[in-house]
């Protein structure tokens, strides 16, 4: 069987398929379960400095084309969260802590208060006031937050980028300049759904973030653009539901692939994607590195 093992963003992984931030990442047990289902690494729910209950319901709108969510970054605060990370670690694979804050200091203090295999900076959640994309849309903020965290931790730092921008490459370059070990693209697209029976916006928070199959073409484009312009690795996320999607992301230049909304189908997606990827490589006698960025070489 073709080996899928290798380095991704400063971590050595059994395979490049990971659990995305905020997906079944609130408890150590669910992180460990993703590990047991075959994930190469897991990213936790984004945690901040104080406990948050999140937005009122509905928090999701299930659609044929994907999901709109406005969870609102519920989390028990990083202080209470170390325990979950430690339980997650018993799954035997790297646990990446996703964190969010309102400024470089808050990010840095959370990062220094947690022990994890890597950090992912959520500079991209589109539906939480003062956090996420409200900072992450500005290259200067991306750079300064990255720099502040890098100065405080010794593990790899990934920066998760927002597609709600005219130029994601600008944001990626800012992360790189700030010293990021990798960028993760993409978080959700700012979106909304209205109930035509009542006229109410469906989400409790009125608007939220679109994920799932609908955003895959946007994500692939972002990964391609970032991979073409950056020197650091790009980790792809957005609508990956099967091994074909994973290959598309890798061909666009992704070093690793994160799975979010597809977990609706259950933890089995990890096995399916990993097996599909291996079988594809074997059938073509290719290595993973042959696939990576292939689309950039096809002209």
């Amino acid at each position: 069987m073709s080996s899928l093992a290798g380095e991704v963003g400063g971590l050595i992984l059994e395979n490049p398929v990971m659990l995305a931030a905020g997906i079944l990442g609130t408890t150590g047990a669910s992180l460990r379960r993703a590990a047991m289902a075959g994930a190469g690494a897991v990213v936790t729910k984004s945690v901040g400095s104080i406990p948050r209950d999140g937005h009122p319901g509905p928090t999701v709108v299930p659609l044929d084309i994907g999901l709109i969510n406005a969870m609102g970054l519920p989390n028990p605060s990083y202080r209470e969260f170390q325990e979950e990370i430690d339980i997650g670690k018993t799954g035997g694979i790297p646990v990446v802590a996703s964190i969010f804050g309102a400024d470089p200091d808050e990010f840095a203090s959370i990062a220094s208060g947690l022990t994890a295999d890597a950090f992912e900076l959520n500079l991209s959640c589109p539906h939480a006031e003062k956090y996420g994309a409200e900072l992450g849309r500005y290259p200067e903020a991306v750079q300064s937050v990255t720099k502040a965290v890098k100065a405080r931790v010794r593990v790899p730092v990934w920066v998760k980028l927002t597609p709600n921008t005219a130029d994601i490459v600008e944001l990626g370059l800012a992360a790189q300049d700030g010293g990021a070990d990798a960028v993760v693209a993409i978080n959700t697209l700012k979106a909304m759904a209205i109930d035509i029976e009542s006229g109410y916006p469906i989400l409790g928070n009125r608007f939220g973030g679109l994920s799932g199959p609908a955003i895959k073409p946007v994500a692939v484009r972002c990964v391609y653009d970032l991979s073409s312009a950056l020197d650091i690795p790009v980790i792809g996320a957005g609508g990956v539901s099967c091994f074909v999607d994973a290959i598309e992301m890798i061909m666009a230049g992704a070093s690793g692939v994160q799975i979010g909304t597809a977990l609706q189908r259950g933890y089995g997606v990890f096995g399916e994607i990993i097996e599909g990827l291996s079988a594809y490589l074997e059938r073509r006698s290719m290595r993973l590195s042959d696939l990576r960025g292939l689309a950039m070489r096809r002209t």
Partner: protein
Amino acid sequence: MSPKSESPSTLAKSVDATILAVRQETPNVKTLTFDLSLDPKAGQYLMAWIRGLDEIPMGFSGPREITVHEVGQATKALANFEPGRSLGLRGPLGNSFILRGDNILLIGGGVGIAPLTFLGEAAKAQDIDVTSLIGFRSSADVLFKQRLEKLGDLAITTDDGSMGIHGFASAGLKELNLGEYSQIYLCGPEPMMWDILSRSKEHSGKIQVSINRYFKCAVGVCGSCCLDHEGIRVCVEGPVIMADRLLNSEFGKYRRGPSGSRGSCRG
């Protein structure tokens, strides 16, 4: 854990339903009947969208009804809906109770009686013998007495002794021989269920338990409802879980609130 063992998540979209009737069951419990059926199986639930306020999980107490216990803002609002008012329903969601054998026992308390009654009625329609043991604080809180009496033997306990056996539901256990029943179904407040479970471990292979956790997405992605230590996504793999899987879980020990932090399971 093989993927096959996971129940597939149900992708239901919100539909608009109108309340046809509201029945006051006890001082703080009401049953709401809808103008449409989501065709649920007993044990499944829906997400009730109270527009402008919140979306909360509710079990079915019948094919087109839910039974609401007023405990906070959303349940109070729902209980105050007048006939003719509409709301959004997303469901049916989750797995369901599975009928096994021809002689079943229902054990429950509080509003947990709701899905059990729905199940008992479905069982009765299939000529299955139904015995029920239900516990409440006081006689005023007793729910669905008539519906359950119609199904077969019914034992009631009250904490204050104002009706039936004096004591917790577990007090009624003594009068029953659990070995007799082909399957046992449990739903009620977590401390009560835990009390029953810890007294009937040897039967845990035939006890189906409907449990509550904090649900947000109800589609199996957000992680809010995950149950330690297996990481069971209660919203899609539950709410009905075999008792033997619960014995070594967080169940009866703690549960998580909306932020994900651990708290008392009495909440």
